[in-house]
């Protein structure tokens, strides 16, 4: 049964990682704008017309 403490440890650790990531996400403004990101991904960044082999 002692493994439950290891698991709680690991699990809390993962949870704390996610909490830290959450704080980081909020602080760096990942969630400042809750609308445009969902629109932005709809636009392609690929170059449309030119045949692109010369670009790199």
């Amino acid at each position, binding site marked *: 049964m002692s493994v439950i403490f*290891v698991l709680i440890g690991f*699990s809390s650790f993962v949870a704390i*990682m*996610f909490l830290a990531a959450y704080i980081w996400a909020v602080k760096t403004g990942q969630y400042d704008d809750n609308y445009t990101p969902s629109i932005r*991904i709809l636009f392609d960044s*690929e170059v449309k017309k030119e045949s692109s082999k010369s*670009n790199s």
Partner: protein
Amino acid sequence: MNVEKFNYDNQIVKLFLIATVVWGIVGLLVGVLIATQLYIPELNFGLSFTTFGRLRPLHTNAAIFAFVGNAIYTGVYYSLQRIAKARMFSDVLSKINFWGWQLIIVLAAVTLLGGFSTGKEYAELEWPIDILIAVVWVVFGINMIGTLIKRREKHIYVAAWFYISTFVTVAVLHIGNSIEIPVSFLKSYPVYAGIQDALVQWWYGHNAVAFFLTTPFLGLMYYFLPKAANRPIFSYKLSILHFWTLIFIYIWAGPHHLLYSAVPNWAQSLGTVFSIMLWMPSWGGMLNGLLTLRGAWDRVRDNPVLKFFVIGVTAYGMSTFEGPMLSLKSVNALAHFTDWIPAHVHVGTLGWNGFMTFGMLYWLVPKMWKTELYSKKLANVHFWIGTLGIVVWVIPMWWAGITQALMWKEFTPLGLLKYSNFLETVLQIVPMYIIRSLGGLLYLTGLLIAAYNIFKTMAQGSFEANEAAEAAPRGSITEKLKYGMIHRYLESKTLLFTALAFLAILLGGLVEIIPTYLVKSNVPTIASVRPYTPLELEGRDLYIKEACNSCHSQLVRPFRSEVERYGEYSKAGEFVYDHPFLWGSKRTGPDLHRIGGKYSNMWHYLHMENPRSMSPGSLMPPYPWLIENQLDLSSLKSKISAMRTIGVPYEEGYEEIAEAELNEQAQKIAADLLDSGILIDSDKEIIALIAYLQRLGTDIKIDVAENK
């Protein structure tokens, strides 16, 4: 405005995409074969390699890690570059990721067919492959996080959050569950034993579902569903909320796989409570997906991609409702060990993972090959045949599960089991097995149609390995990597920094925890429970090799119906020397925990040779090679000393006399068989397996006898 020109790596996406289709066909083909073996045992072909026990882990591993795994990589490698507006961090790492993963799959197939297995569900692969998986997975993680670090878009779109959580958590789970002590090149024992191993295994197993089959696919949903519908996700806020709640809660729900087991009640309750809480974030994801199509359902009518997505997301919603429901103890008492569980799993895999993958493929291939889909009609045929396949797979298994569970639990008015012969309850559901395999066949047919359609689309289009793109550079952050400035650089790269810190803490934690763990174990011990004899230990390894635990549980739950049928319910202290635990998760055959002493050695011999000779109509495959093969004792010594290292109290120097003791016990069994008229050498594998089976669950019988 300053615009940077760069290329997206489409070549790597193409490779993963083709691998997805190929391994999908392989995985489903094996699935259909094993489904058919359940009612035509002759299809085991009397060969060890093609017997159900060997093929079943091959099917699950191929479906999860080969088919779904490659689908994840396909989607991530395509979408991550677009989300980040940057090429993958390193082409070399991308290639290592691809070829490394395919190598793992091939090694997995070969070793699983050869019977090299740890005996832990969805983690059957042996230690050298485990290490390879860890390395390739970390390569994937570095490549992903590296790409995010050099991204041009300041904002990390929600899909990538799901990808990151996938990487982090799967790494922790895989390493945590795979801590094992090697005894030879392809054999190891987990350091955990009994209920501890059970807790770790289902902490892993449950979260493999969560972070391999769920979070990456939610990420894919958040990218490909809006792209295919050309509409933004219903609510970006909801996506944030459900992401954080989902990943936090999922981790804790593992013990719901162990309800009514020998695991302490409070751990079981913990699992149940978190499982019920999981319902809400799961449905947050489902609703966000479905509501994205609000006002655009006319597009669903015309667009096969969206059709697949709609069924996929709906299946996700159904199985994430079913999961919490099955975690209720009263429901679990009925459903556990029955075919209801595979039904639940297949709603998720066939519906959610399969259909999301198909939708993604049908969208990606025309896009990357710059053409139209070869045949929309064939895609629609695939959609209907696949949907029908799921229905025909799942409904009979729900039916079979409930039917059989009710039969297991039914008593006559006199208080006797109504169906005391287990086989009777199996034969009752054979028609369901037949229908189920047809469902699988339909689903496989759909995939074959898809493969043809995809191939034709590729052939008519033109593929560009490096697709030109342009985007504005990301603002402000311009710290360059220079000698002497590495930490300064790291400080500006938060994600990389986090990842490194995470690795550091993880290593420290492992080093601190594991030794204390190895030294002392506080599992409640029962005085009469002794370690396995060398012969029983070898027999147990054969039990693992043939994956008997695929179909037989070793856990009598504390219900009247089970105690009546099998004997005294299982206690935690009985499993302290079980590395690994072998409780199983499905009773295709009866429980074996109290099998010891129930039948004669002769019965077991004849039964393994041909199960139908002892149980007419049995679905169990014959194991004739156990009678022919000589027991391999080459690693007996290292097995004993490895077991001692992980806490089994074999005396110092016991390995020196182990072989002599083994031979002595084997000769007794051979002599007993000879008395029954069976002439067999004592050095055959069957002798060891009989020794193990006769030992099972008997320690506690001695206890009862002595106390009386």
